[in-house]
Each structure stands twice: as structure tokens, then as C-alpha cells.
């Protein structure tokens, strides 16, 4: 989609050099093609919990001394819909994650917007962190938060870290906020050189 639209446009311009009428027709065609694309940004899933089964071996972090052949985790659908990330942002306040992690800058709990991940930065790792808890003070939310909402929270935590596409990450808050909006977070550069 992203590639063939400009292609159509270029072809149109090329043809347009031959005749004005062809140019006009091509522009009309382009407008017709572009207009419906703006109608729907994404599909919102409003059904109840749809647990996403985590892949095997997700307890490993990037720092895990494994054989180094961990497959790159597939992107979860939750970090690809702005709606789910925004729901995660609301729940991050509602479930008082912000009480310990503040707005991602860290306080009682570690910062979630920096490049350091004790327990891994993949969405599966974060889901495991939320569900199981972590020994140095991260409480377990297993059973308290339904599966789907855990994934939405994890998707939001990823957006705080800058791992989520800018058109999906939440934009500016209505109220004052010390940190820049999630969709303006810098893209992280983990020190092992591998992308997230």
C-alpha cells in the first residue's frame, strides 16, 4: 500500500508530461485512491479477552546467555493498533503502575523509557514481568488483570520505551506532562547493537 500509491503518482506525472488531460485524469484517480484510505485507520477489537499464547521460550531476555539463536519475536497485534496501546496507557494509570514507575521515568520501580531492560524488552518478556512479578519489588498481577489487558499494558510499556511505531504510540496528553509524548520518544539503541 505505502509503495504502490507513490508509484501510481510518479507514473501519472510521467504520463502527464505528454498531455495535460492525462495528468488531470491521473490526479483524479490518485485522489479517488487516497480518499478511501483515510476512512479507517485500523480495526478495533472490542471483544472480551482474546489471550495471545506466548511463544515458547519467552522467559529469556536479550541478555540471556543462550545459544544466540533466539528468533526475533513476531510483533504482537497489540502493539500495532493505536487503540490497544491507548487502552494500555489508561490502564497503566488505573492499575497504578504509575504509582511505582511514574510516567515511565522510574521511581520506586525502574525507568521504562531507557535502554536498560533487566528482564527483556520484547512484548512477551514484559507480559511475563507483569504476570509473574519480579523479585526486587515488582508485584505479580496474575489473576488480577485479564490476559488481554496484560497485553495492552505491555504494548503501552513498549511505546514508553519507543519500540512502537510513531503512528501507533499515544500522542500528547491533554494535561501537563513532564515527559514528551510516547510517539515522540527516541528510538532505543540497545547496547548489543541489535534492534528491538
Amino acid at each position, binding site marked *: 500500500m505505502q509503495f504502490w500509491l507513490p508509484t501510481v503518482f510518479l507514473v501519472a506525472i510521467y504520463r502527464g508530461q505528454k498531455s495535460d488531460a492525462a495528468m488531470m485524469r491521473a490526479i483524479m484517480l490518485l485522489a479517488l485512491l487516497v480518499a478511501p484510505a483515510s476512512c479507517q485507520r485500523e480495526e*478495533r477489537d*472490542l*471483544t*472480551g*479477552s482474546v*489471550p495471545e499464547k506466548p511463544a515458547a521460550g519467552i522467559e529469556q531476555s536479550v541478555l540471556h546467555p543462550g545459544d544466540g539463536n533466539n528468533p526475533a519475536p513476531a510483533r504482537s497485534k497489540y502493539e500495532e493498533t493505536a487503540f490497544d496501546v491507548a487502552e494500555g496507557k*489508561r490502564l497503566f494509570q*488505573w*492499575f*497504578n503502575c504509575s504509582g511505582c514507575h511514574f510516567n515511565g521515568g522510574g521511581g520506586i520501580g525502574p525507568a521504562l523509557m531507557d535502554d536498560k531492560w533487566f528482564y527483556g524488552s520484547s512484548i512477551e518478556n514484559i507480559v511475563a514481568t507483569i504476570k509473574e512479578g519480579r523479585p526486587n519489588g515488582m508485584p505479580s*498481577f496474575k*489473576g*488480577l*488483570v*485479564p*490476559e*488481554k*489487558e496484560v497485553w495492552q499494558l505491555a504494548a503501552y510499556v513498549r511505546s514508553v520505551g519507543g519500540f512502537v511505531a510513531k503512528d501507533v504510540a499515544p500522542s500528547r496528553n*491533554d494535561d501537563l506532562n513532564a515527559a514528551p509524548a510516547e510517539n515522540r520518544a527516541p528510538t532505543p539503541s540497545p547496547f548489543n547493537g541489535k534492534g528491538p
Partner: protein
Amino acid sequence: MTRLRGKALLLAAVFLAGCAPYAVLEPQGQSAGSIAGLLHLFMWVCMVIWVAVVAALAYAALKRPTPAAGSPLQSAAEFDGKANWIVGSFVALTVAILAVLTLSSYLAGKTIADITGTETVTIHVTGYQWWWDVEYEDTRPDRTIYTANELHVPVGEAVKIKLDAGDVIHSIWVPSLFGKRDLIPGQHNELTFIAEKPGVYRGQCAEFCGFQHAHMGFTIVAEPRPAFDEWRREQLAQAAIPAALEQQQGRDVFLSRGCGLCHTVRGTDAGGRVAPDLTHVASRQTLAAGTLRMTMTDLARWISDPQAIKPGTKMPKADLDERELDAVVAYVGSLK
């Protein structure tokens, strides 16, 4: 043909009956009364004017043109005098009618505003997507009542509602009792009204606020002072201690499966402040902001899958098994 007309009439009657709880034309409170009076005055005056204008127009359009005697310019001076007189008197009439309408609108506004400051009860209502948080203010903090989606007011007394919004703009409207007033984030609004007759009145959010705007209703129960005081006393109490075994199990499910992260049940560890207070939820007449009736079946439907009933609502579907679900429904249903 007659059967068809009969059916059409029946259908119209059914639709009109649907209007009953929202009756603007059947005011039960002072503010709504003034507004309805104004509506009638404007309607009749404008109707008479409309009929007169249409009649004049029809007369002018249908009148046979009288053949002009001699040059049309001849009688210009005479005609001008007549026209001046006619136009002048209609301008005067228009000014007079507008003055009367303006004055009556001012007087209605004054009647509504005059009761401000005479209130005996102050209620703080905060609009959220898509429910109403309700707090009865009291000078003594231990006498403050927290509830949701249902207001009780004493009949014949002025009640002040303070309005705020927690997320987006909402608007409060109880057609039988008072006109609309917006709830705006960061802006504090107020309204004062008097319910003149006991009854149950339906209210509705009147400002589009997202997915479930249409399911953002509430009820106002107007009752005599003693009944109101009794209700107030009951609401102050902490949640009922579950008696039956299933209800006790339900309380454990409620506390251990995350309901308490969002909801408060006073007297238990559940202290969430982002969702309706459930301490006396079963004493309300409706469920989920006027969406369902308060019955055990509807309660079970709501808790088992709120997204099926109000898609997009901020209450998630809980991952509960059948036994946990039955227990938690039994517990919530016992919170009278």
C-alpha cells in the same frame, strides 16, 4: 386500508409511549415547567405568525391582478402613504412581539436561576465514559455518600448539582426536571432544580462522548423527605457482610480477581476509584448507566461479558470460570 391505518396508529402510539420517561412536555419540576411554558408560548405565537404570513402570501399569489387604471405612476403618492402605514404598523407589531418573547424568556431564565442558593442538598456529579460518578457532599466527611448512576432527591426541595467531567465533555439532561448543562473537563458548572412530584425520572447524556454515549443514562428518584433520609442512612452504611457460602466465595473472587482494582466496596479491601462504587449497587434500579435492569440475570450478563453489552466500555471482560462467575454475581447481587 383501514387495517393499515390502524397498524400505523398503533405504531405511532408505541413510539410515543417510548417518549414517556423523557417527557419534555410533561414537566415535573420547576425548571422544566418554565422551559415547557416558554416552549408553548413560542410555539403558539410563531404558529399564528406563520399562518398569517402564509395566508398573506397565498392571497398575494392567487389574487387576480387588477388592470391598472391609467399610468401606474399617477397614484404613486397616494400608494406610498398607504404602504408607509402598513409597513410601519407591521414593524411596530414585530418589535412588540419580539419584546414580549424576549421578556418571557428572561422571566423563565430568572425563575430557573432564582432558586440558586436555596438548596438543601448538594450533589457532585462527575461524568466519565460512560457512567456517572455521584457524591453527596456533607460538611462532615464521614457523612459523604458515594454512589453512581442513580440520584435520590427530596421532593419539593431545591437540589444543587455540581458538574465536572473526568475525560471528555458530557451533558446532563433530565427532560422532565431540568434543561441540559454541560460537564466540561477543567470547567466547573452547576445547576439547581426542584422536583415537584415523587417519581422516577430518566436522564441521559446529551453531548456525544464516544462509543457508548447512547448508553450513558441515569435515574433520578424523587421521594418524600423521610424516605430520602432513610435512603441516605442506608447508603452511608458499609457493604453487607455476605451470609451465604456462595456469596462469601464471591467476595473472595471479587477481591482476588481484580474487580477491586477499579471498584470500591466500602468495608472490604476493594478501593479502586476509577469505576462505579459498588457498595450498594444492588439497591439501584438499573445497571451500567441505565443500560440493563438490576436483576440477577442482567447482572450475570454484565459481569460475564460487559463488552458484549456495551462494546468499548472501560470494564474488561474478566477471565472467570463458571463457578467463579456464579459466585461473584451472587456476591455483587447481595450488595443491597
